C-alpha cells in the first residue's frame, strides 16, 4: 500500500534524494539541491509580496498613506547596485536598514541581555536550587567564564587560574548543549521518517 497522491510522491522523492548525500555526492542530490535553491529564492519573493509589499502598495495607491512612497523608493534603491554608474545609491538602502537595526540594538538589548542577567546572578550564596552550593558555583561560574574573555590582561597567576576554570565551566555548558542537541537532530530525522512511513507508505498510523 502506497499513496496515489502525486504530490506526496514528489515530497518523498525530495526527502530520499537529500538523504543520499551523507553516503556520497551524486547527481540526484545535485538535482534536489538545484530545486531547493530555486524554489527557496522564489518563495522569498512571493511570501514578501503577499504579506507585505502588496498590502503596502494598496495603502499607497488608495491614498491611505502617501508617505509610504519614501520607503518604496529607498528600498528599490538597493537594485541600483547592478548599474555601475549609480551603484552607490544602494548604500542609502543599506544605511537606512543599518541605522534602524543598530538603533534598535542600542535601545533594547542592554537591559534584558546584560543588566537583567547581571541582576539575576545576585544569588543568596548560602543556598541553591538542587544542592546547597549551587548558587556559589553559579556566581563563580559566571565570573570565571567572563574572565576567560579578558583579552587585554595576560592569563597568568590568579587571572590565569580563573580563566582556566572558566574554560572548564564553558566545556560543561557546551557539552550540555551538545547532549541536548542530539534530541533535536533525531527529532528532525524522525519527522521525515514519520512522513515517509505515514503519508507515503501507510506503514504506521
Amino acid at each position, binding site marked *: 500500500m502506497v499513496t496515489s497522491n502525486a504530490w506526496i510522491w514528489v515530497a518523498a522523492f525530495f526527502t530520499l534524494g*537529500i538523504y543520499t*548525500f551523507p553516503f556520497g*555526492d551524486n547527481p540526484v*542530490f*545535485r538535482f*534536489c*539541491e538545484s530545486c*531547493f*535553491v530555486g524554489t*527557496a*529564492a522564489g*518563495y*522569498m519573493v512571493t511570501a514578501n509580496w503577499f504579506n507585505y509589499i502588496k498590502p503596502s502598495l494598496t495603502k499607497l495607491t488608495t491614498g491611505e498613506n502617501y508617505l509610504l512612497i519614501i520607503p518604496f523608493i529607498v528600498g528599490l534603491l*538597493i537594485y541600483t*547596485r547592478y548599474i555601475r554608474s549609480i551603484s552607490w545609491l*544602494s548604500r542609502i538602502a*543599506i544605511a537606512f*536598514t*543599518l541605522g534602524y*537595526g*543598530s538603533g534598535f*540594538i*542600542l535601545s533594547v538589548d*542592554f*537591559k534584558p541581555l*546584560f*543588566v537583567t542577567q*547581571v*541582576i539575576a*546572578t*545576585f*544569588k*543568596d*550564596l*548560602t543556598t541553591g536550587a538542587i544542592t546547597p552550593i549551587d*548558587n556559589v558555583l553559579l*556566581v563563580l561560574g*559566571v*565570573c570565571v567564564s*567572563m*574572565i*576567560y*574573555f*579578558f*583579552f*587585554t*590582561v*595576560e*592569563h597568568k597567576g590568579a587571572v590565569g587560574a580563573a580563566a582556566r576554570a572558566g574554560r572548564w565551566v*564553558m566545556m560543561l*555548558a*557546551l*557539552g550540555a*548543549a*551538545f547532549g541536548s*542537541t542530539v534530541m533535536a537532530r533525531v527529532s528532525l530525522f524522525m519527522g521525515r521518517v514519520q512522513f515517509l512511513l505515514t503519508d507515503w507508505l501507510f506503514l504506521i498510523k
Partner: protein
Amino acid sequence: MGLIKPGLIATFLLELAFGVAIVVLISRARTGRKVPAIRKVAGLDALDEAIGRATEMGATVHFSPGIGDVSNAQTLAAFAILTHVAKMCAKYDTRLIQTNRNNVVYSITEEVVKQAYVDSGKADAFNPDDVRFISEDQFGYASGVCGIMNREKVRANILIGAFWAESLIFAEVGAQVGSIQIAGTANTHQIPFFIAACDYALLGEEIYAASAYLSREPVLIGCLIAQDWGKMIGVILILVGAISVTAGSTWLNTLLNK
C-alpha cells in the same frame, strides 16, 4: 531625571558610559597612544598552517562568513579575517572559494577579496566567479556549500562568523573530505559543534579578538579594550550584588532597576 523613562535610567547611564569608553579608546588607539596589548588567540597560527597545507596539495581554501547580515558584529569580524585569508591565498597562488548566504554580505565580500588581491599585487589572479552567492535560504545555502566542498577539492575550511544549525553540516562534511578546519562563532549554541568537529575552534568573543589582532585596526582594538572594561565591571557588579543579597540587602538590584 524626568528625561529618561523610569526603569531605564541605570541602563541608559551604564550604556552611555560604555559608549563613551568606546569612542575615547578608539581615538586613543587611532592617534597611536599606548593601549594595552591584545593577547594572541590560539588557533590563529593554524590559519597560516591550513592555507599552507592546501597550497602544498594544490587544493582549494573555502571561507564562509556565516549566515548573519551586515548588522551582525560577527559578520564584520569575519570581513577582517577574510582579508587576511585572501591575502595569504593571493600570496601563495592558492585558490580561494568564498561562499555567501546574504545578498548584501555577498556584495561586500566580493569587494573585500578583490581588494586583498589588489593589495597583494595579484589583481589578475582574482577570479570573481570564486566569490559566490549560494542561496538566501539557510539550508539551501548549506546544501550548496556541501556540494562545493565535495566537488572543488577543498582541503582548508575556514568558518568564521554567525552560524546556526548549518555549522555542523559544514564542519562534518569538511572533515569527511579531509580538510583542516578552523572555525569560530559567538553563537553559543553552535560552539560545541565546532569544538567537536574542527581542528581549531575560536570561542565566542575570541573571533573579535582575532580580527583585531590580525587587522591591527585601531577601531577594533579600541573596542575590544572597552569590552574588556565592560566585562570587568560586570564581574565586580555580580560579586558585590551577590554578597549584598547574601547579607540580606537588595540595594544594588533596586539601583540597577531604576
